[in-house]
């Protein structure tokens, strides 16, 4: 039964909002607690009323009735004493008692309001008048000396007296009954007030229980959970505060800071995004232009090739022709590099060892290296383990890196390719290729710039060689770094995680 009630209560509570629930319960408690004292005050007023207005009056009437009866009883003796002693003193005392009787009677008339009591009083007064008259008659008979006649009437008067006394008793009895009645009313009301008080206590306890339930279940526990939530940081925050509300306050201010930081980051990355969108659009435009230029350029190259076969030129004409051919070749290289750079990533992965890539690249570039007057040495402890990569792309990257080094060493020099394998956390196993040249080195201030598209320190560079290298390495999940010791030369290191293949199977 209580369980059902509780469930019903919970269901009703659940339908209301938390705030409404708390307000409702608080309002209920307040109402019950206000109603209690109001009822008590009302009861106290009622009790006082009962006493002052009714009980006191009734008691006074009862007392008066006693006095009245006493006065009556006194009158009874005096006539007899007078008859026995013939002393006038008794008659004077009789008069005194009669006055006292009439005085009490008058007082009672003033106090009595109930119609029954008034009727009784009327009866008493009437009977008394009769009695007093009869008594006067008896006394006058005694005074005349007609003792026998007086004696006979005296007996009759006695009967009148008994009737009168009986009336007085009835009068007293009426007030006794009224007092009993008042007492009963009082007890009845007291019982009612006690009942109300018991109901009030029960309602108070119920409301208090629900309020406690709502407070604990829906405010304090969630607060505690909030304060404790958020993993280790939350517990740490709670550890310093005995008060969950303080802990939550702390948490909120932390959160606010985080939000501000996140907002800043967002603004920043929005800026970066806009920047890179602009760059991407410029890139697409430039790629379109490069692609369009390529076609007439090819036509020019073909005509030059055709011209070269039939021309008989003197040395200076020959030189002019060669410069034209060279510059056109240069334009072609820029366009081709640019298109290569702008090409969307498209890798065909296969297991390949970086050592094999080094060998093919060096074979491919043998004549170029000779013409640059560059000595190449490969430092290889053993053939590097295979990684999942696009060999053509790796070859392209290495060609660009080697040619970049060759162009940096104006007078020729030496180039060292050092192959390394190892473990680097958090990437796990890695393979690396270190390309060291004996050129002038790179100003550390330019370390970032040299990987930017179209940045070049060479008059003839396309500014795309190193960006292509960087892009290819990054497409393979690796990275490229540059070092330039003060002693001269530059060291480019390409690093590929062996687990990198997982990353770019998707592309």
């Amino acid at each position: 039964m209580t369980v059902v009630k509780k469930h019903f209560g919970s269901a009703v509570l659940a339908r209301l909002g938390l705030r409404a629930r708390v307000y409702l319960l608080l309002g209920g408690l307040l109402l019950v607690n206000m109603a209690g004292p109001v009822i008590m005050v009302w009861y106290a007023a009622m009790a006082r009323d009962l006493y002052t207005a009714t009980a006191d009056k009734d008691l006074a009437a009862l007392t008066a009735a006693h006095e009245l009866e006493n006065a009556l009883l006194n009158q009874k003796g005096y006539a007899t004493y007078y008859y026995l002693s013939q002393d006038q003193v008794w008659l004077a005392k009789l008069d005194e008692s009669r006055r006292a009787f009439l005085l009490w009677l008058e007082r009672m008339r003033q106090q009595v309001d109930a119609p029954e009591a008034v009727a009784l009083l009327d009866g008493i007064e009437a009977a008394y008048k009769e009695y007093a008259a009869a008594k006067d008659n008896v006394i006058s008979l005694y005074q005349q000396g007609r003792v026998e006649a007086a004696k006979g009437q005296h007996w009759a008067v006695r009967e009148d007296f008994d009737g009168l006394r009986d009336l007085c008793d009835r009068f007293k009895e009426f007030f006794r009954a009224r007092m009993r009645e008042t007492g009963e009313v009082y007890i009845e009301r007291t019982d009612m007030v006690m009942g109300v008080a018991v109901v009030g206590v029960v309602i108070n306890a119920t409301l208090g229980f629900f309020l406690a339930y709502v407070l604990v279940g829906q405010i304090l526990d969630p607060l505690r959970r909030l304060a404790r939530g958020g993993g280790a940081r939350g517990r740490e925050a709670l550890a310093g505060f005995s008060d969950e509300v303080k802990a939550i306050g702390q948490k909120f201010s932390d959160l606010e800071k985080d939000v501000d930081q996140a907002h800043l980051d967002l603004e920043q990355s929005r800026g970066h995004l806009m920047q890179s969108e602009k760059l991407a659009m410029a890139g697409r435009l430039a790629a379109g232009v490069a692609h369009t230029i390529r076609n007439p350029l090819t036509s020019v190259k073909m005509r030059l090739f055709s011209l070269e076969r039939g021309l008989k030129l003197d040395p200076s004409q020959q030189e002019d022709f060669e410069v034209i051919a060279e510059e056109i070749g240069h334009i072609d290289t820029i366009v081709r590099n640019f298109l290569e750079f702008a090409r969307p990533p498209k890798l065909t992965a296969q297991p390949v060892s970086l050592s094999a890539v080094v060998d093919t690249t060096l074979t491919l570039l043998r004549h170029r290296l000779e013409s640059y007057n560059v000595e190449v040495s490969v430092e290889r402890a053993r053939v590097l383990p295979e990684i999942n990569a696009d060999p053509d792309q790796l070859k392209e990257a290495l060609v660009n890196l080697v040619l970049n080094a060759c162009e940096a060493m104006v007078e020729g020099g030496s180039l060292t390719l050092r192959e390394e394998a190892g473990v680097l956390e958090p990437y796990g196993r890695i393979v690396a290729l270190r390309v060291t040249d004996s050129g002038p080195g790179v100003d550390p201030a330019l370390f970032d710039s040299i990987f930017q598209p179209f940045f070049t320190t060479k008059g003839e560079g396309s500014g795309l060689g190193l960006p292509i290298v960087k892009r290819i390495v990054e497409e393979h999940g690796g990275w490229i770094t540059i070092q330039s010791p003060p002693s001269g030369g530059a060291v480019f290191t390409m690093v590929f995680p062996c687990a990198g293949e997982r990353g770019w199977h998707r592309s």
Partner: protein
Amino acid sequence: MDRPRATLVIAERNANIRELLRREFGREGYAVLTAGSGAEVLSHLSLAEKVDVLVLDAEMGGPDGSALVPQLERSFPQVPVVLHGFAGFEAGEGGVARVEKDGDFERLKRTVRRVLRPGEANG
């Protein structure tokens, strides 16, 4: 030239390159038909008595350049195709010979000769 003249269709969007190739291949003794668009290629292939090789500009026939090759392979499977395009261009299927389009048209000539007489070494 004791054997009958081979007929080439040279498809190339750039008129200057097209005319150069017509001249160069004409000098080699080929009968040359030229086409400046995909539609012309198709009309030559349908109307000409015989076509021995098609030299196809890889970028012809739409922006992606590759739409024409599968269609040709379906409609004219007997005509070998030499795809002439820029490096990195990956249009076409495995059965098509590819020549990189740079200034050296001698390489294109060698490829056409090889396609006409398979089994003969490059040269």
